[in-house]
């Protein structure tokens, strides 16, 4: 597969996101890639719209459904929700949408901070394979991938995104029950 330029996907996502920003919208990035994207989108939105936008960051390590199998993720990041979530229109930002399990975990964590007015999901790529009734509301692109493959989004020191595909050595071990 010829991989698209993630910068173009981000541009596409930005065009969908911009009209949805209201006065009480907050962007919440999902670690790690989603936080990079959130910060890029936020900066541009604030410049073009001319006002500050609330933002936060979540990891949801404490809400994942694979804790009983895999334990607590060691590289978890502290949650950062510096605003009152009640009544806000939350837009979650993730890099790769896969099973929907991460989104579920993040929503559970979000609701422990309060009751948002609405929650939407923006993902740079939907790779297919959802296992829950959850789908992104905005995507940069739909790019179906085999279960033993995964997208790797990277950001260089200049903040430029790059995309690659990695193949797992044993297809049986990867994939379907994975959070991604």
């Amino acid at each position, binding site marked *: 597969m010829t991989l698209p330029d993630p910068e173009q996907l981000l541009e596409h996502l930005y065009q969908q996101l911009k009209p949805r920003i209201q006065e009480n919208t907050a962007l919440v990035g999902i670690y790690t890639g989603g936080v990079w994207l959130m910060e890029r989108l936020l900066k541009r939105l604030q410049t073009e719209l001319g006002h500050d936008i609330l933002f936060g960051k979540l990891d949801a390590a404490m809400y994942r459904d694979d*804790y*009983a*199998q*895999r*334990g*607590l993720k*060691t590289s978890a990041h502290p949650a950062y929700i510096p605003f009152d979530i009640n009544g806000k229109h939350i837009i979650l930002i993730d890099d790769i949408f896969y099973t929907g399990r991460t989104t579920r975990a993040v929503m559970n*964590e979000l609701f*422990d*901070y309060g009751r948002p007015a609405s929650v939407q999901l923006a993902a740079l790529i939907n790779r297919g394979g959802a296992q829950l009734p959850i789908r992104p509301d905005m995507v940069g692109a739909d790019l179906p991938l085999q279960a033993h493959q995964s997208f790797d989004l990277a950001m260089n020191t200049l903040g430029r995104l790059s995309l690659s595909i990695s193949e797992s050595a044993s297809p049986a071990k990867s994939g379907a029950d994975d959070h991604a």
Partner: protein
Amino acid sequence: MHNPQLNAQGQLQHLLSIEGLPKRILTDILDTAENFVGVAEREVKKVPLLRGKTVCNIFFENSTRTRTTFEIAAKRLSADVLNLNVSTSSQSKGETILDTVNNLIAMHADMFVVRHQQSGAAHFIAQHVPPHISVINAGDGRHAHPTQGLLDVFTIRKYKPEMHNLRVAIVGDVLHSRVARSEIHALTTLGVPEIRVIAPRTLLPTDVEKLGVQVFHNMEQGLKDVDVVMMLRLQNERMSGALLPSSQEFFQTFGLTPERLALARPDAIVMHPGPMNRGVEIDSAVADGKQSVILPQVTYGIAVRMAVMAILGGGNAA
């Protein structure tokens, strides 16, 4: 050598003592605890990690404070908590430790938090439980109190992140203190270059230098230029014979007063594991002063205990 605290994959299975734990495990616990600090500030002060699990606090020796912090930590992880004060129950009827533990296992307990007046009690229980059960030592005799040691280093790291550049003084009854031992092991493992103990000869173990500390018998010399002052409680209940003339005299010589604290670095922090004996080991002006981090220690203690339980309670399919 097999470490009874680690499983075959080198992951934490029980927390019995900081001695012998590799740096990666200590760092992992402290980093995980960072994530739990914020939970207490949210609208819902709970995460679902230990939902459906049962944590048993088995206290063969009374300690309301330690038991309460473990109870809050377990409840914030959504566990069901059972508190057993064995000193006032079956043991007085002659039941052995293992009988007590086996009864709780038969009730499908998942984790034991054990406090005992004898050193090695938590180790003993850990050796006899099936592999799906974890044991946390909440203080055994004079031996260890690992979560207290961890919360102390967590607090130090919060206020003084450059651990490789610190001078730490531990003051008071080192002889009877399991906390001091756990603290020294944790600080050494995390790379603190200079650890001092300040105490009268009668309240120091004979081989204390072997722990890699500098010994002082004089507060004025020992506190000079330190970054952290860790006070210990005078353990009256553990003291036998005439180790001290009187607690008033102890305060005269080893009590932390504002004048003595002034010898430490101006930004030094003051810690105490509690409960404090005001006017015995610490002056109220210091305990309530702006350099005191004694109450933050309590708050961080919950996050650290949550981290330990969350690490122990999860799966380990690597």
